[in-house]
């Protein structure tokens, strides 16, 4: 089993203030992830705001260069050269899906041009008919069709349609990996399921690997194979999604789970914060520097002090 994508001890820090300033923000610290080629999966990253999820996604997409460590796609380092052929090949295989479907399309431009452009650039298609066929195929995969999309402006489509069109665009170039950074956080409850179900279907039917970044643990549980929980740039727990979420080990993971509002006790107004878990996770954060990942078996590992 060869690796599709390897994130190898990657760290990223941003300088704060001017050039002379020594202050740094450690947005991502020492992250290892390996996605395998012949096992398409939905790999979920969750964590609090500012824990480095987006930064990690950007690192993988080659939009930032790691401070330390390396990211490889099919063995090739990512992010070498901004417009080179290698980058081109990479982009045709690894594609992002953005958070806000309304923002992801230029409101002043027609939606279909992004699909056409992708087809032309990464599939080396030139004939109109070919391009349209590729577009249509991708749109059908997400439950749309070219007829519905053609000539429309973003505001003429619903959020769900747009988000699907965005995914279809990523599929036009037959991407193997989709990196979806909070793809449903801006979408209402009824659409949310449509998108999430679509991601699942893509994995199952088309063998697409999805890196799914979210705050919503419930959808994470619902679709993902593996999960990675981050706190302040560090991974605190990782493993098979269900196993981890059913019995989280790290205090922060537990806090997360405890904070998920559930409809189960609808009407009871169960909003009491889990103060003890909060404090425990703060403590864990303080000692994070001197901690390491402990393997709990079945790919489940958790950060422990020592």
């Amino acid at each position, binding site marked *: 089993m060869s690796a599709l994508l390897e994130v190898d001890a990657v760290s990223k820090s941003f*300088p704060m*203030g*001017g*050039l*002379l*300033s020594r202050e740094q923000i450690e947005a991502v610290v020492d992250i290892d992830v390996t996605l395998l080629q012949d096992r398409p999966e939905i790999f979920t990253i969750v964590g609090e705001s500012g824990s480095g999820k987006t930064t990690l996604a950007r690192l993988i997409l080659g939009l930032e260069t790691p401070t330390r460590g390396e990211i490889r796609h099919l063995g090739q380092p990512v992010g070498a050269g901004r417009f080179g052929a290698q980058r081109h090949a990479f982009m045709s295989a690894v594609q992002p899906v953005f958070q806000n479907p309304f923002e992801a399309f230029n409101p002043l431009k027609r939606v279909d041009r992004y699909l056409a452009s992708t087809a032309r650039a990464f599939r080396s298609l030139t004939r109109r008919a070919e391009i349209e066929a590729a577009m249509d195929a991708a749109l059908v995969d997400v439950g749309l069709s070219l007829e519905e999309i053609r000539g429309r402006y973003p505001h003429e489509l619903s959020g769900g349609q747009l988000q699907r069109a965005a995914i279809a665009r990523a599929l036009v170039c037959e991407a193997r990996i989709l990196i979806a950074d909070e793809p449903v956080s801006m979408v209402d409850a009824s659409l949310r399921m449509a998108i999430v179900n679509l991601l699942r279907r893509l994995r199952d039917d088309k063998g697409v690997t999805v890196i799914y970044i979210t705050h919503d643990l419930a959808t994470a549980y619902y679709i993902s194979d593996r999960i990675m929980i981050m706190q302040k740039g560090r991974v605190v727990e990782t493993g098979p999604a269900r196993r981890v979420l059913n019995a989280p080990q790290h205090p922060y993971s537990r806090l997360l789970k405890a904070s998920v509002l559930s409809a189960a006790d609808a009407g009871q107004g169960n909003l009491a914060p889990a103060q003890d878990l909060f404090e425990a996770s703060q403590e864990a954060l303080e000692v994070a520097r001197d901690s390491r990942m402990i393997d709990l078996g079945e790919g489940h590992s958790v950060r422990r002090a020592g």
Partner: protein
Amino acid sequence: MRSYAFFALKRLIQLAVVVFAGTSAAFLVAHFSPISPVETIIGRVSGQSSFSPAAIESLRATLTELFGFDEPLWQQYLNFWSRFIRGDLGPSLIAFPTPAMELVMRALPWTVGLLTVAIVLAWLLGNILGGLAGYYQNSRLLKGFGVIAIGIQPIPYYITAFLMVVLFGYIWPVMPISGGFAMEIRPAWTLDFILTVLWHALLPAASLVLAGIGTWFLGMRALVSNIVTEDYVTYAELAGVRRGTIVGGYVIRNALVPQLTALAMALGGIFSGTIITEQVFSYPGLGTLLIRAVNGGDSGLVLAVSCVAVIAVAAAIFVIDLLHPLLDPRVKVG
């Protein structure tokens, strides 16, 4: 704080380089001028009395040597810089050997005084009215003002100024139309003098304000009509925050940063306005000096005036860059 100092230092270096480049351009401009100060002076001296051709020839030789025109251009350029570093811009050639800087400094207060006041006034009025017009979009009065502003804006400044002169100097002669102060009053820091200066500055300043206000008005109105749709404005309105506070502290305050940048440019680019003002109102200042220098081929003086202009604009950019992080808390230093 340290990072701010470092940021300021970087800007300062940039300022220096901009000044260097701008001044060098000014030097070339001044020196490629086909007008020779030597000939200007000879024309003046010999044109009005009976000078023999031979006498003119020897005067020409003397002046050429005196002005250092016998040296090659690069040498003159080096000389210029070695003087510039010592803060000396060299002598004026049509007022030889008076230092060009002395002439500039004599004229500068008038130009800076009048134009600063007028531009700042136009800026304030235009922005306040534009802010109000952007906010109270249904006010008839302000709408009317908008139409007037659109109408005034394209009128060449010369016409505005000139009509002022005709109106208040000729048809209804209530205002002085020339000079910076009344002849009876000697320049000194007395109340009388200050009053006469203000009185004489009124008409030119009004013409500059009139010419500038439309642009600021329209710019501000456009900015504000974007800002009023921002959530924080709506929210403040829904919270019943006082109208005045909303207009001032929310709407205009947020539109201020781009308008301030533009103000700095306007202040830096003082010269295009000053020439016509001085021409029309016989007002003292740098514009007349520049025209005289250009017409006389006085490269020293052209250079001095241009340097002041370059430094003014570059300094304006510098100050705005420095102020930007302070004005807009969102701007990160670095």
